[in-house]
């Protein structure tokens, strides 16, 4: 599996090059890749169905427990197959949809990267590994949404998606870490076996909340749903693949994966159905009001995701089964519909529902695909969607606690799905129209074959996927009893009656849709919706940080110094106050007797130089005097036996003086502009800093720590490091990594100075 992922990444990064060599035929190798993936996963199916799991592990950072651990069980395999088989079709479809783009190679690169990352999510067993791939999907999604980078709405939407899912990802990471801490396990398989006893842990609740946040943002649950409709700015293959079939299902996957750990908690049982229910109803309602084809599909996707979350929250065996069946059904039909929408957009140049009419004659295959998908969406008999709906009602009816809520939500959402399925198939393609829309070009096979195949799969997928679905639900709920069938047929039972009722209500709703579309939605309709809130927050954050930086960094070096010194003094004073450190100077006065003459001379020299410095108005004098002080410090170092430090001090002092002299004639004439009060203020800060430093140093001397460090270095530097100069050996050998860090900082500073001083700002312009 590792090699598969690695090959995937390699091929992804080679895509631009391949595009350069092969031109539009680049899709051939890139379709082969998911084909190989699918072949591999299909090859694994018999083993997994027999109950085996395929595992693989490579240690990465063993000290932190970060390992590339992969594990393929039923649930993983189901998702992996979905991702890779869907990937084949999307790669083909992209050739038709994006074929004319000059950046086709880049597009394929992002898409392949995403596919590999998504596979990584579903097969990784380790928390860190999962998080890595999780964030990679967020980033590739950002790149794909913003693929039309010249459009500002694309860029905004991409930002929004990245921020929302990225923030959720961070929450998820924190949640996973807490989970790992509470259970002592950092793999999902380990959690399943031994992690059940973490319910009493105090970290259980925060971990659960954080994980839920991560999953909700990824899967576009209320109130984080707003990024998904905006993400429709992406090219349609991306919407079909990422934003309906796979990436938004990552949250569902993780919720399903962790539900054995969490589903006994009341908060879980309460929050998931509630949030899912709100999302489902809201998505359905908004889908009806929109006229943009992709927006309609996006809101129905949100609604479907809500249903899935609700089902996982119910957590009974039927609900789990229903969630998985519905998930697969939804991925298949929604992917198909998205591709159909893209094809229509490509062929007619519009996505507005009222304009799209009477297309069945001229785009028969597209129409066929849409109809097949619509069957599944509406939940009509032979399709996978029918089974999903059946199971949904069944699990609703068998669950007494939240019967009303679940049933109501399911009924409402199902009704809307039926109506929209009718709109998307019957009204666009098959209803006779007096003003059929003009076609710009016919649909190429790349544009209609993938949706058609997927549509067929959504109709015929029931028997093919049943064993796998059952195996997948086994890996969520291990004690599930299966009879080899998804639905126990019960004749004309209550479930079937409900299903029929939904279809009927949907039909009635369909008749009202033209009226609903009379006044389509605009963003102004929701001044306090989450989307507007996001934009408000975003712009305020930007302007706020700008103002903050402008006040704090006003360009005056002295202000920066004052901030730094005051902060330092505050910190030191706080520590002194907290630990009540008192100096006992009285015991040490006798030490003054051992003062040597040249020390006294140096001391007097420094003090008088400083006094002179305060009184001079000439820059040259002050520079020279500063140099004098520096050199005296170097002398002190020599007196106390630190030749290396003294040499460095001397050289640095020299350099400083020379650089000052170099710049001297460029400075304006010396003048006192500061107000008297400010001068006093600076004096105060200087005195404060000086006294705090002195006090701290005296304290340090008083409580000198005895350590073996000196002896150790004394011995080791010669015996192990072949050097007699301890200071230098420490610098380049024992603490070489520190030095490396320091010189890196120095190098970065040099680059910064280069950039700052070489930019010659125009007067009044931006620096």
């Amino acid at each position, binding site marked *: 599996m590792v090699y598969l992922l690695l090959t995937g990444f390699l091929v992804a990064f080679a895509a631009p090059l391949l595009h350069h060599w092969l031109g539009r035929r680049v899709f051939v190798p890139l379709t082969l890749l998911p084909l190989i993936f699918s072949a591999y996963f299909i090859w694994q199916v018999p083993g997994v169905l027999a109950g085996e799991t395929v595992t693989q592990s490579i240690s990465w950072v063993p000290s932190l427990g970060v390992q590339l651990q992969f594990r393929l069980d039923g649930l993983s395999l189901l998702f992996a197959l979905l991702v890779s088989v869907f990937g084949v079709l999307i790669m083909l479809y992209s050739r038709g949809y994006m074929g004319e783009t000059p950046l086709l190679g880049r597009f394929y690169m992002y898409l392949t990267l995403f596919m590999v990352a998504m596979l990584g999510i579903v097969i990784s067993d380790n928390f860190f590994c999962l998080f890595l791939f999780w964030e990679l999907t967020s980033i590739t999604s950002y790149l794909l949404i913003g693929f039309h980078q010249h459009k500002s709405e694309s860029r905004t939407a991409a930002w929004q998606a990245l921020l929302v899912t990225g923030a959720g990802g961070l929450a998820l990471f924190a949640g996973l870490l807490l989970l790992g801490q509470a259970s002592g396990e950092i793999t999902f398989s380990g959690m399943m076996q031994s992690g059940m006893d973490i319910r009493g842990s105090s970290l259980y609740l925060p971990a659960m909340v954080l994980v839920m946040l991560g999953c909700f943002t990824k899967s576009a649950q209320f109130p984080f749903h707003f990024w998904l409709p905006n993400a429709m700015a992406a090219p349609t293959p991306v919407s079909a693949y990422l934003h309906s079939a796979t990436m938004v299902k990552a949250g569902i996957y993780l919720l399903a994966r962790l539900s054995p750990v969490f589903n006994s908690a009341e908060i879980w049982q309460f929050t998931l159905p509630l949030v899912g229910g709100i999302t489902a109803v809201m998505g359905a309602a908004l889908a009806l009001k929109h006229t943009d084809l992709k927006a309609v599909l996006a809101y129905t996707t949100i609604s479907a995701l809500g249903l899935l979350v609700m089902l996982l929250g119910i957590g009974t065996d039927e609900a789990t089964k229903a969630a998985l069946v519905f998930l697969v059904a939804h991925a298949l039909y929604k992917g198909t519909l998205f591709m159909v929408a893209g094809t229509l957009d490509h062929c007619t140049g519009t996505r507005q529902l009222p304009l799209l009419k009477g297309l069945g004659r001229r785009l028969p295959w597209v129409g066929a695909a849409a109809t097949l998908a619509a069957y599944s969406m509406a939940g009509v008999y032979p399709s996978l969607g029918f089974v999903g709906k059946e199971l949904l009602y069944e699990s609703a009816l068998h669950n007494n606690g939240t019967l009303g809520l679940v049933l109501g939500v399911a009924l409402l959402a199902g009704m809307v799905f039926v109506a929209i399925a009718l709109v998307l198939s019957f009204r666009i393609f098959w209803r006779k129209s007096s003003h059929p829309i003009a076609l710009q070009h016919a649909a190429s096979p790349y544009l209609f074959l993938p949706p058609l195949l997927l549509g067929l799969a959504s109709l015929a997928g029931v028997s093919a996927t049943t064993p796998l679905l059952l195996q997948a639900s086994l890996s969520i709920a291990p004690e599930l009893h299966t009879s080899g069938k998804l639905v126990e047929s019960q004749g004309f039972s209550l479930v079937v009656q409900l299903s029929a009722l939904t279809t009927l209500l949907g039909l009635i709703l369909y008749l009202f849709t033209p009226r609903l579309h009379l006044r389509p939605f605009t963003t102004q309709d929701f001044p306090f919706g989450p989307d507007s809130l996001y934009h408000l927050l975003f712009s305020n954050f930007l302007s706020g940080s700008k103002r903050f930086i402008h006040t704090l960094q006003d360009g005056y070096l002295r202000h920066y110094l004052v901030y730094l010194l005051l902060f330092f003094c505050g910190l030191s004073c706080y520590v002194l106050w907290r630990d009540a450190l008192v100096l006992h100077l009285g015991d040490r006065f006798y030490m003054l007797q051992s003062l040597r003459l040249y020390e006294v001379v140096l001391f007097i020299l420094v003090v008088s130089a400083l006094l002179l410095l305060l009184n001079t108005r000439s820059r040259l004098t002050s520079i020279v005097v500063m140099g004098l002080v520096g050199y005296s410090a170097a002398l002190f170092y020599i007196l106390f036996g630190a*030749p*290396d430090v003294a*040499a*460095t001090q001397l*050289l*640095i002092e*020299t*350099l400083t003086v*020379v*650089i000052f*002299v*170099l*710049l001297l004639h*460029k400075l304006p004439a010396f003048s006192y502009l500061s107000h008297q009060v400010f001068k006093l203020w600076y004096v105060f800060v200087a005195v404060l800093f000086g006294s705090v430093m002195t006090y701290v140093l005296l304290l340090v001397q008083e409580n000198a720590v005895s350590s073996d460090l000196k002896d150790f270095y004394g011995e080791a530097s010669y015996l192990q*490091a*072949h*050097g*007699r*100069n301890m*200071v*230098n*050996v420490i*610098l*380049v*050998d024992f603490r*070489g*990594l520190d*030095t*490396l860090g320091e*010189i*890196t900082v*120095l*190098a970065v*500073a*040099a*680059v910064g*100075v*280069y950039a700052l*001083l*070489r930019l010659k700002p125009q007067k009044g312009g931006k620096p």
Partner: protein
Amino acid sequence: MKTIIFSTAIRLLTPVFLLFSVYILFRGHNHPGGGFIGGLICSIAFVFHVLAHGPGVTSRVFFSVVLYYYSRPKSHSYTRYALRVLRANFRNKRDTDEPHKWSFVFLRIRPLYLVATGLLLAASSGIVSLLGQKPFMTSYWLKFELPVIGSIGTPSLFDLGVYLLVLGVVLQFIFIMSKE
């Protein structure tokens, strides 16, 4: 500050400074000194040179390489061609009466290149030990000692990196500040 005495003295002293800085660099392992101090001394040498002669002269004299070459005529064998090019570059003797024309490339060693080289050296000195399956920056020493320089090992390489980097950083500052 372009006085005759100062600039003449600096011209004579700069090589001494440079030699001294290299001495300090290699001395550092057993006596006070090392890459940082050596680099500072070296850069101070150049700083004084800049003060005396201006940054243009300094960078022309010390930090630029002119490579001469000509397109090889059919009559010249490869050996002859190589010898001629070498002579032109190292002994600065170019036959002007030849039918071919000399062309040259002017390479400037920018201070940032020094910084980058130093960082690369310092960082890669630690990678050596990775090849031997040891932790990053485990030091290796040659078994024998070189004359004059003394024992050589990966820490010396690291020190050399620090030397170059410090030199580059100070030169960067000085060149930019004195140019403005």
